[in-house]
C-alpha cells in the first residue's frame, strides 16, 4: 500500500511541476514581455489594467499581470519580497515620493530616450515630472491623475435649502453648511478612515492658499506650518468636523453615499474616483452637482493624486523590449483616453481633447482646471494620498490630523502646534 501511495505522490508532484513549467516553455523567445504587480484586481481599476494588458498584447507583447488585491501595503510587501529575492517585476505600481525612495534599493530603467521621443515632458504637470524623474532621469511614468479638491453636493439636499451654485470660497461653503444644518441636513458627508480625515484638512489648506500648502506640506517649512494660513485650515477643519456624521466609526466613506444621495448629508469633498462609486450604486449625473472645492483666491487650483508605474531593471532582453513598449503605450493619447475613460480619472497629458463621449463633464472640467492650475503655479501634491511626502512623514502628519478631526476638545491652535511638532520629530 505504502509504496503505491509514494509512487503516485511522486507522479502527482511531477505533473504539477511540469504543468507549471509548460507555459514558460511555450512562451516565444524574444517576444517583448513584462511582468506587472499592482493592487488593481477588481472594479474599474481591474478593468482598466486588463484593457491596458490587451493593448500591450495587441502590440505584440507578452503581458503577465499579478494583482495583489487589498491595501497598497500588501502590494508593497510582495514587491519588497521580489526585490529581496533578486527577481523584481519588470513593472510595478508605485506612487509619489515612494518612487524616489524605492529607486534607491534596486536598479531601475532609464526611460529618458522614450520620454524624449514621445515629446512627453512638455505635456506633463511639472509637479509630476519631479516625482517621476527623481534623480534627473525618468524611471517611472504616471498613469492617471485625480483631482483631490473636488466638491460634490447632493442634488436633493441642495434643492431642500435652495442652493443652485457651488460654493466658490470657504465663506460661501460655510454659509451653505449653516443653511443645511438648520434644515436638519448633516452638512458634511464623510467616512471615518484616517486618510479621509487628513484629506479634509488638506483640501481646506489648499483651498485657503495653494502657496502656503506648498510651503507647509510639500516643503515642511517650519514658519509656514506655524503660520496664519495653516491655522485658518485647522479652524475650517474644526468647523467641518462639527458638521460631520458622528457615527462613521472606521467605516469607508462609500458606506454613507446612499445617505448623501438621499439628501440626508449635503456636501462631500472627495477625489474624482467617487464617480465610480456613484456609477456602481446606480446614481445618475443629475443626482449631484460637482466642481472644484472652494478656493479663496479665486484662481483654479489642483490638488494632485497620480497613480504610476515604476520600471525595474531586468537583464533579459525580452523584458527590456517589453518595458520600452509599455512605456511608449502608456504615454500615448489613445491609451490614456481608454484608461481614464474606464476609471473616471483624468489623463496625465494636459494636451488632450476630452470632448469624446467616453468622458463626463466632471472629468472635462477637472482636466481643464489641471492645465490652468499648472499655468498659474497652483498645482500641489496630495498629502493624504501619499503624493507630497514619503510614507513615514505622511503617517506622522495624518495621525495628528485624524486626532484633531475626531477629538473636538483639541483647539485649532493646539492642533497646529501638534502638527508642527510631529513634523519636527520626523524631519
Amino acid at each position, binding site marked *: 500500500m505504502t509504496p503505491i501511495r509514494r509512487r503516485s505522490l511522486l507522479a502527482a508532484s511531477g505533473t504539477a511541476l511540469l504543468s507549471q513549467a509548460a507555459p514558460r516553455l511555450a512562451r516565444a523567445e524574444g517576444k517583448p514581455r513584462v511582468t506587472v504587480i499592482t493592487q488593481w484586481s477588481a472594479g474599474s481599476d481591474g478593468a482598466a489594467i486588463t484593457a491596458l494588458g490587451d493593448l500591450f498584447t495587441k502590440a505584440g507583447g507578452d503581458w503577465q499581470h499579478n494583482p495583489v488585491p487589498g491595501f497598497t501595503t500588501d502590494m508593497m510587501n510582495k514587491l519588497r519580497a521580489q526585490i529581496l529575492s533578486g527577481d523584481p517585476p519588470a513593472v510595478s505600481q508605485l506612487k509619489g515620493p515612494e518612487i524616489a525612495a524605492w529607486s534607491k534599493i534596486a536598479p531601475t530603467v532609464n526611460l529618458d530616450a522614450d520620454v524624449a521621443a514621445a515629446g512627453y515632458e512638455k505635456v506633463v504637470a511639472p509637479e509630476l515630472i519631479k516625482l517621476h524623474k527623481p534623480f534627473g532621469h525618468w524611471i517611472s511614468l504616471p498613469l492617471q491623475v485625480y483631482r483631490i479638491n473636488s466638491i460634490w453636493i447632493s442634488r436633493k439636499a441642495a434643492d431642500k435649502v435652495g442652493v443652485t451654485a457651488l460654493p466658490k470660497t470657504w465663506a460661501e461653503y460655510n454659509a451653505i453648511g449653516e443653511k443645511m444644518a438648520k434644515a436638519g441636513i448633516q452638512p458634511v458627508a464623510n467616512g471615518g478612515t484616517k486618510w479621509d480625515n487628513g484629506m479634509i484638512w488638506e483640501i481646506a489648506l489648499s483651498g485657503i492658499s495653494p502657496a502656503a500648502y506648498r510651503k507647509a506640506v510639500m516643503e515642511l517649512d517650519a514658519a509656514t506650518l506655524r503660520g496664519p494660513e495653516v491655522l485658518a485650515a485647522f479652524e475650517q477643519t474644526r468647523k467641518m468636523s462639527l458638521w460631520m456624521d458622528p457615527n*462613521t466609526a472606521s467605516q469607508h466613506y462609500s458606506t454613507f453615499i446612499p445617505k448623501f444621495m438621499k439628501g440626508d448629508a449635503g456636501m462631500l469633498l472627495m477625489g474624482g474616483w467617487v464617480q465610480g462609486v456613484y456609477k456602481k450604486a446606480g446614481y445618475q449625473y443629475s443626482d449631484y452637482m460637482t466642481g472644484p472645492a472652494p478656493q479663496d483666491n479665486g484662481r483654479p487650483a489642483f490638488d494632485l493624486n497620480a497613480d504610476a508605474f515604476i520600471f525595474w531593471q531586468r537583464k533579459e532582453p525580452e523584458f527590456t523590449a517589453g518595458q520600452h513598449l509599455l512605456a511608449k503605450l502608456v504615454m500615448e493619447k489613445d491609451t490614456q483616453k481608454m484608461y481614464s475613460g474606464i476609471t473616471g480619472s483624468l489623463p496625465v497629458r494636459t494636451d488632450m481633447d476630452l470632448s469624446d463621449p467616453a468622458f463626463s463633464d466632471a472629468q472635462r472640467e477637472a482636466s481643464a482646471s489641471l492645465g490652468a492650475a499648472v499655468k498659474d503655479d497652483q498645482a500641489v501634491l496630495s498629502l493624504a494620498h501619499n503624493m507630497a511626502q514619503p510614507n513615514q512623514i505622511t503617517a506622522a502628519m495624518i495621525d495628528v490630523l485624524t486626532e484633531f*478631526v*475626531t477629538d473636538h476638545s483639541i483647539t485649532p491652535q493646539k492642533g497646529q502646534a501638534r502638527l508642527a511638532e510631529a513634523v519636527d520629530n520626523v524631519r
Partner: protein
Amino acid sequence: MTGVRRRLDAALPLLAIWVPVLISIVYVVGFTLYTVWISFTPSTLLPDYGWVGLRNYSAILATRNWQIAANNMAIYGFCFLLLTTALGLSLAVLIDQKLRGENVFRTIFLYPLAVSFVVTGVVWGWLLNPGIGIQKLVVGLGWTDFRFDWLVDRDRALYCIVLAGAWQASGFAMALFLAGLRSVDADLMKAAQIDGAGPLRTYRRVILPSIWPIFIAVFVILLQFAIKTFDLAMALTGGGPGIATVLPSIVVYDFMFQRGLLGRGSAAAVLLLLMLLAVLLPYAVFRRWQHVRNARNA
C-alpha cells in the same frame, strides 16, 4: 532492494514528523532572532545591517502612538481577562448542571471561536455603530433617547474591542472551565452536600478552589490572546477614532509596512514579544514548580 524499501518505510514517519518540526523551528526561532537583529539596525524599506544600538527602541517608546498603545493594552488586557473569565466561568457552571442538550449549548458557545477575528470585527463594527446598528434599531422601535455610541466615543471605543473579544473567547474559557469542573471528585461534592452546603456555597468553597490551576491556565491563554490582538481591532475600530484605540500590534504593522520603517517596527515587535514573555515565562516556571511538587507528592 527490499531492505532499502523497508528502511525507507521505517524512515518515512520520522521524516513526516521531523521535517515539519525543524522547518517550524527555523521559521519561528530563526525569524524571531532575525527581527531582534533588525531592531538594532537602521533598516527602513529594506533590511540594512548597520548598528544603531537602542535608538529604534527609544524612538518607538517616545512616540505618542506607542504610549497610547501601551496604555490601551493595560486597560484592554485587564478588562478582557476579567469579562471573558467571568462569562466563561458562568457559562461553564450553568452547563455543568447536567442539562439536557448540553452538547448543543457547548457547540453554540464554542462556535464564535471558529469565526475569524476579521469577521467578528466587521460584524460587531456594524452592530455597535450607532448610526446603523443596535442604537438605530432601539431608537427605531420607539425608545428615542436610547444611546449606545461607545464605538464612536474616544474614551469608550476600546471597550467595544473588549466586548467583541470576550464574545469570541468566552466559549473557549468555558470549555476549559467545564473540563476542570468535570474533573472534580464527585465524593468531594457529596461530602459538601452532606455537610449541608447549598449549590452556591459548594461551588465557591469546594469546587472552584480545587480547580485553581485551570484559572491560571485560562488567564495565561487569554492574556496572550489579548496581547496578540490585531485583526479584531483593525476590523472593528481601525485604531480609531483618531488613534485612540491603537494596540501594540497595530503600531508594529503601522511602522513596518505603512511607514516603511523596518527597524522601528521590529523594535516595536520585540517589545511586543517581551510583553508576551512577561506572561509566559512566569507560567512556565509555575508549571515546572507544579510538576516538581506533584512528583514529590507521588
